[in-house]
């Protein structure tokens, strides 16, 4: 009974946020467009040689993905904050962690998941071989939820502030550095024919850690900002 009730709450919020996100198409498309433009900048600046681009591809894709997701973070709580529904959600008797998880999941489905599709396209632009491409996709699958989870903390801390977008980027980019290290080294390991299980385990561990701790930090931050 309680189980059904809570999952109902989760699905309700998730559906609502997905619907809002899909209707507001510029918020959905702009980060993806930004991603593909950033990827295009690299061949233009470092030269179109196939070998160089192939070697740098995982780093380029990941840096562009991190920048794109830090741009889209602002949207997690802002509109709900501005029209007051965020305050109502926090005042409601519903389990708040579940509510926050639903909002973060919606953000990932709207920003992280479509990004993975765009990465396929950018892999072609950067001459990434199929084997490395698959590894890159796995690292993104494990890593982009972490971007949404940790990013939600920064979004909650800065909700309602002027120029919050740049501030969010300053707060979270240092925290994403370990993620980038493991993700990029997984792909370069594949290129050299080495094992990648270690990196996958590390990325998985970061995902589990972020899943367990980040919702609490988000809730605490929102409560502080709404006080």
């Amino acid at each position, binding site marked *: 009974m309680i189980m059904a009730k809570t999952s109902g709450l989760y699905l309700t919020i998730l559906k609502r946020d997905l619907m809002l996100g899909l209707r507001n198409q510029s918020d959905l498309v702009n980060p993806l467009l930004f991603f593909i433009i950033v990827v295009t900048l690299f061949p233009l600046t470092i030269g179109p040689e196939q070998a160089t681009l192939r070697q740098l591809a995982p780093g380029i894709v990941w840096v562009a993905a991190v920048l794109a997701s830090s741009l889209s973070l602002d949207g997690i709580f802002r509109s709900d904050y501005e029209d007051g529904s965020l305050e109502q959600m926090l005042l409601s008797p519903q389990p708040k962690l579940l509510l926050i998880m639903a909002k973060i999941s919606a953000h990932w489905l709207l920003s992280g998941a479509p990004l993975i599709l765009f990465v396929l396209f950018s892999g072609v632009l950067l001459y990434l071989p199929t084997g490395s491409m698959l590894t890159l996709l796995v690292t993104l699958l494990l890593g982009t939820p972490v971007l949404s989870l*940790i990013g939600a*903390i920064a979004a909650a*801390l*800065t909700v309602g*502030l*002027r*120029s*919050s977008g740049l*501030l969010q980027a*300053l*707060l979270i*980019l*240092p*925290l994403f*550095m*370990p993620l980038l*290290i*493991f993700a990029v*080294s997984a792909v370069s390991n594949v290129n050299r024919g080495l094992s990648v299980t270690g990196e996958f385990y*590390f990325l998985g561990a*970061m995902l589990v*850690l972020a899943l367990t*701790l980040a919702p609490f*930090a988000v809730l*605490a*931050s929102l409560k*502080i*900002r709404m*006080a």
Partner: protein
Amino acid sequence: MWEWLIKFASPMNFYLLVNRFAPWLGRAAVVLFAVGLYGAFFYAPADYQQGESFRIIYVHVPSAWMSMFVYMTMAGAGAAGLVWKTKVSDAIARSCAPLGASFTFLALATGSLWGKPMWGTWWVWDARLTAELILLFLYLGYIALQSAIDDRRMAARAGAVLALVGVVNIPIIHYSVEWWNTLHQGPTITKMDTPSIHVDMLIPLLVMIAAFMCYFFALVLVRARVEIIEQERNSKWVQELVLPPGGHK
């Protein structure tokens, strides 16, 4: 014990305590700096490999040590502020950030100065230097957040959450950077990772660390005192403090 702590946590008692202890901490720092620097320049022998330039460790190592210690103090004070909602711990946490950032910058600058003769370049993507650089970014993010939120208490509490997130991340950053570095660099750098340090070199280092600690605590208390006075400017005891006795506006 608890009563004493709660009494200490009241802003007025904190103010009086700082008035009494901060000058002594400051004097202790001056004496320890004098002793430590004398030891660093004249007592410690020159290193058989690095010659005189190794002496920069007497500033570099304590600053690097303090950069971590101050972050932990900041996060600890912030957590105490979140749990007990004490104004004093909020003020201490906020006061830590610029000091910690300065220590981190000092560690990076001295590391870079030492690196020029030793490694031949100003900067090497050495694991520890890189981790220190990321730590500097964490401090600067904290300061940016503080200046973005106008309400002091809210800024302190938001900063506390950020600092705690940073504490969880610092070990991850440290080990991932170390791992990344060994993957990329290989043993091209001859680091000063000698298994032991001669006792004549160690004593001035310990004195310098003690001096840095006293200096930090003296400064953080004075800064927190300023924060408290600004925060409590409308309360009766601050008004009485500022206005001349008997005088009324």
